[in-house]
């Protein structure tokens, strides 16, 4: 099988790394609202450990918006305890090469882990996201949805794997990867995988790759919007989708503004 990682474990990644830990227990969330964390713009390997105790509820946004020349590898480890809930949004939007790895251990009954990812690559950027979720106990839930946009000569790689152990009946686990190729020179790789050892589960996975949809362009044109503006609206719409669920409007607005995808306000 081809090697589809942006970085291999033996690669030397320039820069100085960092380590960050989030520990949450029920009723004592580490902060109110959404935890918004930015990967330091130093290159190197950055590690984040997220440990959710029984009943903990955390919403977190991790943004990687490095400078153009920076290469980085971010490793996130999640341990989800009983009845805990994690809403995690990961955004890769900067740097020359950026790899992001999320290893989730759903190890407490009733735990829910939901992830939205956005890889927004342009120029010659190379972004990869690997997300593994292991369900070890019964009655757990995970949902992974990743949007990748590849422009110019860029490349995106999605590797998703759900592993449901024999010991995890009544698990529900889903993953979906949507890819938008905006250039003939861009490369998109997608590898959604399921490994299921128990029959009493509900699982789905899928991947789609396309360019901008001509019927959508036509619809907008028929409403007086020129082709270039229509395509820009559609791209912004694509990039906005994984951000829509961020519950903190200020955090969402800040990210949308930086990505240049701010929507018409309606109030």
């Amino acid at each position: 099988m081809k090697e589809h990682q942006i970085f291999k474990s033996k690669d030397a990644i320039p820069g100085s790394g960092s380590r960050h830990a989030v520990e949450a227990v029920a009723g004592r969330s580490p902060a109110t609202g959404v935890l918004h964390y930015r990967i330091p713009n130093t290159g190197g390997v950055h590690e984040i450990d997220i440990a959710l105790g029984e009943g903990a509820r955390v919403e977190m946004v991790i943004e990687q918006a490095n400078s153009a020349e920076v290469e980085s590898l971010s490793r996130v480890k999640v341990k989800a305890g009983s009845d805990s809930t994690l809403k995690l949004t990961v955004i890769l939007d900067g740097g020359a090469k950026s790899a992001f790895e999320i290893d989730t251990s759903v190890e407490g009954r009733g735990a829910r882990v939901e992830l939205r990812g956005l890889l927004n690559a342009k120029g010659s950027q190379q972004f990869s996201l690997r997300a593994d979720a292991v369900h070890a106990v019964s009655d757990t839930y995970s949902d992974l949805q990743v949007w990748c946009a590849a422009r110019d000569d860029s490349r995106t790689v999605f590797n998703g794997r759900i592993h449901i152990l024999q010991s995890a009946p009544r698990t529900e686990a889903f993953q979906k990867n949507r890819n938008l190729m905006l250039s003939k020179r861009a490369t998109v790789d997608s590898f959604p995988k399921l490994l299921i050892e128990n029959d009493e589960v509900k699982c789905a996975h899928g991947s789609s790759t396309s360019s901008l949809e001509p019927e959508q362009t036509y619809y907008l044109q028929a409403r007086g919007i020129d082709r270039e503006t229509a395509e820009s609206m559609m791209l912004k719409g694509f990039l906005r989708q994984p951000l829509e669920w961020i519950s903190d409007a200020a955090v969402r607005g800040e990210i949308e503004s930086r990505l240049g995808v701010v929507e018409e306000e309606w109030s």
Partner: protein
Amino acid sequence: MSAPLFEIRDLHVAVEGKEVLKGVNLVVRRGEVHAIMGRNGTGKTTLSYTLMGHPKYQVLSGSILLDGEDITQLKPEERAKKRLFLAFQYPVAIPGVSVASFLRASMKSVRAGEIEPSKFRSLIKDELKHLSIPETFMTRSLNEGFSGGEKKRLETLQLRLLQPKMAVLDETDSGLDIDALRIVSENLQSFRNSDRGMLVITHYQRMLNYIKPDVVHVFGSGRVLESGGPELALKLEERGYDWVEGA
């Protein structure tokens, strides 16, 4: 008799190399509503897409004129700016693009210029009430997860906001329950005036009970087979299409 507002002259159109429209002729004058009725697969939707400049439909010969100007070769957005409007039978969903920002971009383009935000909102709020559309629609992604009826209401909203002089309605009555049909039809009917024209493509008489057509055309084999007054729609409802096609 007033000058034609909208003309289709001997229009021949191919889709993927196959000729579907085989010489369509039609003249709509200001203030007139024309209905086109016909079986499935006779080319009605091909006609509506061609009129709005869909790139998949190749005009082999003939022309389309709006206010005397030949628009046959214009891009869809140029036709919209000249105030031609197509209400789609199956409006597409565009995830991540809100109804509000779509409407703003569309109105800015078609109605030439920036509309002050408070005026934009009050104008839309007014129209939403007429169409019984909740305001929450405005922040939803365009047509995503909308029911058939919601999509058609949104098409009607766009028509009213964009103020076309010629509107083509492609089966706007399909997918509507009785109440939605009444609301949509009444809004279309109240949009009618002596300056505008409308081409209503439909399978059923029911919408024409609200929007009384001046002329009814029977469409078959890629062209107009028969034209007449409103009584023709009733006759079709009663007797079907065989008598026209067999004539």
